[in-house]
């Protein structure tokens, strides 16, 4: 009776498989699984970040390998620069205005995408489309759309006799229009993600709550502002934070569309940092400009992490 059982046991506990024992230990398995991510983060985020801080307190240039530390001197020079002041104002203004537009449009799109109608999938597809295009590519496409000679907008406006034919609008050539174009493009490209986040938020609100409010005598606006929006607020916050990060740090749109111009009217921190540090050769000042984005992004990150850890499920 005991013979077959014993034979089977030796098969189950095959002691030759030592590797399994090693990976079965959490102390080994945990670090092994974490290592790729940590190495990636250290090499591609950690090292550059530390380098930027070192450069910002130095006199480094792209021309020489060596550099010496100069304390806060670079910062003083940076802050005194009127273009820098313009860039920091623009970065904040573009981000805020674009995100206000995005949150309004994303809420409307969220409603449209959760509504039940024929052809719903094509609307969802079209809304998501900008998200799937790389920023550089879509910015190039917009560059053509806003070209003073070839702009389809100019053509349409001309056909409608809004502007006289032969005097095209210089979308990227006039200060006001260029600022408007940059903001519009920032809003356009961050809208899809916000719309999807809000769509998910709207779906997560139990339909009975709105039905209950309807029976309780509330009209459309009261239901919107008293029931839906308060319940949507936490997820709206998430969409806004994502949008702020995407807009605040972006340089591709400005770089491709206006190169900061006309003059320095559309210069933002990211683009100005690039022009000063890489094209202008002053690594130290480029780094110092970049560091001014740090406190805002740090604040947003802290808010996001708090949000994520305190999500309230009712």
């Amino acid at each position, binding site marked *: 009776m005991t013979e077959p059982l014993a034979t089977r046991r030796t098969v189950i506990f095959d002691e030759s498989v030592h590797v399994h024992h090693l990976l079965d230990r959490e102390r080994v398995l945990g670090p092994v699984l974490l290592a790729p991510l940590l190495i990636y983060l250290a090499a591609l985020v950690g090292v550059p970040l530390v380098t930027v801080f070192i450069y910002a307190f130095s006199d480094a240039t792209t021309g020489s390998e060596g550099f010496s530390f100069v304390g806060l001197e670079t910062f003083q020079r940076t802050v005194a620069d009127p273009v820098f002041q313009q860039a920091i104002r623009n970065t904040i203004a573009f981000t805020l205005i674009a995100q206000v537009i995005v949150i309004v449009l994303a809420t409307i799109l969220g409603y449209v995408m959760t509504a039940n109608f024929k052809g719903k999938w094509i609307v969802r597809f079209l809304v998501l489309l900008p998200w799937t295009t790389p920023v550089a590519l879509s910015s190039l496409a917009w560059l053509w759309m806003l070209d003073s000679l070839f702009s389809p907008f100019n053509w349409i406006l001309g056909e409608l006799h809004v502007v006289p034919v032969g005097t095209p609008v210089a979308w990227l050539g006039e200060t006001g229009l260029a600022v408007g174009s940059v903001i519009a493009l920032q809003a356009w490209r961050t809208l899809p993600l916000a719309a999807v986040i809000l769509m998910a938020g709207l779906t997560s609100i*139990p339909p009975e*709550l709105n*039905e209950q409010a*309807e029976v309780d*005598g509330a009209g459309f606006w009261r239901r919107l502002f*008293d029931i839906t929006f308060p319940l949507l607020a936490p997820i709206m916050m998430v969409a806004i934070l994502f949008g702020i990060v995407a807009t605040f740090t972006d340089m591709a749109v400005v770089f491709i569309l206006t190169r900061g111009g006309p003059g320095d009217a559309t210069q933002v921190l990211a683009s100005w940092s690039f022009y000063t540090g890489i094209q202008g050769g002053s690594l130290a000042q480029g780094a110092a400009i970049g560091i001014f984005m740090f406190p805002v992004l740090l604040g947003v990150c802290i808010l996001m992490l708090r949000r994520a850890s305190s999500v309230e499920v*009712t």
Partner: protein
Amino acid sequence: MAEVEVREIRKTFGVTSALDGVSLVCKDGEYLVLLGPSGCGKTTLLRIIAGLEEPTGGDILIGGKSVKALPPRARKIAMVFQSYALYPHKKVGQNISFPLEALGMPREERDERVRWAAGLLEIGHLLDRKPRQLSGGERQRVALARALVREPRVFLLDEPLSNLDAKLRASARLELKQFQQRVGVSTIYVTHDQVEAMGLGDRIAVLNRGRLQQVGTPDSIYNEPANTFVATFVGSPPMNLLQRDGKLVGFRPENVKVVKKSTGRDGSTVFACHLLRIENLGSDRYVYVSVKDDRGEAKLIAKLAMSEQIDVSANDDADLVVERRYLRFFDRETGDRRTDA
């Protein structure tokens, strides 16, 4: 307070028919229970009365006037959902005052009415809490207070007890009934639980597959079922049915005696049976038997009080004795009730 009437209500979702010509009246101040299995259309009917669902055909009258064209907020009704649908971001007090705010009532008046409703349901101490801090029973009271606060013409309740645990459900049932008797508002109550229906309803409307099966007092629903569906849906265990001489004969399990050999008293019918199993349930015992009928064999249940002595045991052949006044006859084809012949 008002009478509610639905006339020939039909509702189809695509090709499936949820309600197929239902006409029903809930009298002023009445407690009407809509009873039926899940998917029978009872909740759809309630939502149509509330205005949350548009009927495909038919009319809804509240207080004698058609409300078919009115949106829910203009119907002056109150509804309590199965989930209670408390606004999670509002405190209890704000939840209760919400319908009053929607009416545009001034603040002092609102506060006074909230206190009145909260007092009636004994939740005055909870007004500053958020719904998630409440127990199931407390949530139910808040939902009722919110329904009550603007003195609606009709209460619509959609399985409000199904989220409570069994122990709480019995006491909540009692409270619901007392509460309705105190405020005297017409109430339409949806449930699939026949015990709730029997215990709460002044009248019960039994629905199945979108059609009204029977409307009547709990007593008549139980004792004079209109068809085999009502007979077997209401009652636990359900009414016994067996086919004899081309007719369906039914009788309630508790109206049966099981004896070794019947003496054949007058006014009784005796069925020869075979005992399969006896189940002891504390206060009662269920005796499972098989009886020969037209189709071969029918499995029946007898429910006997424990206080009653029996002289049979499993696998015995015995006699099932039913007084003739307890026998109900149904049509074999349609299942409809036939006159007792």
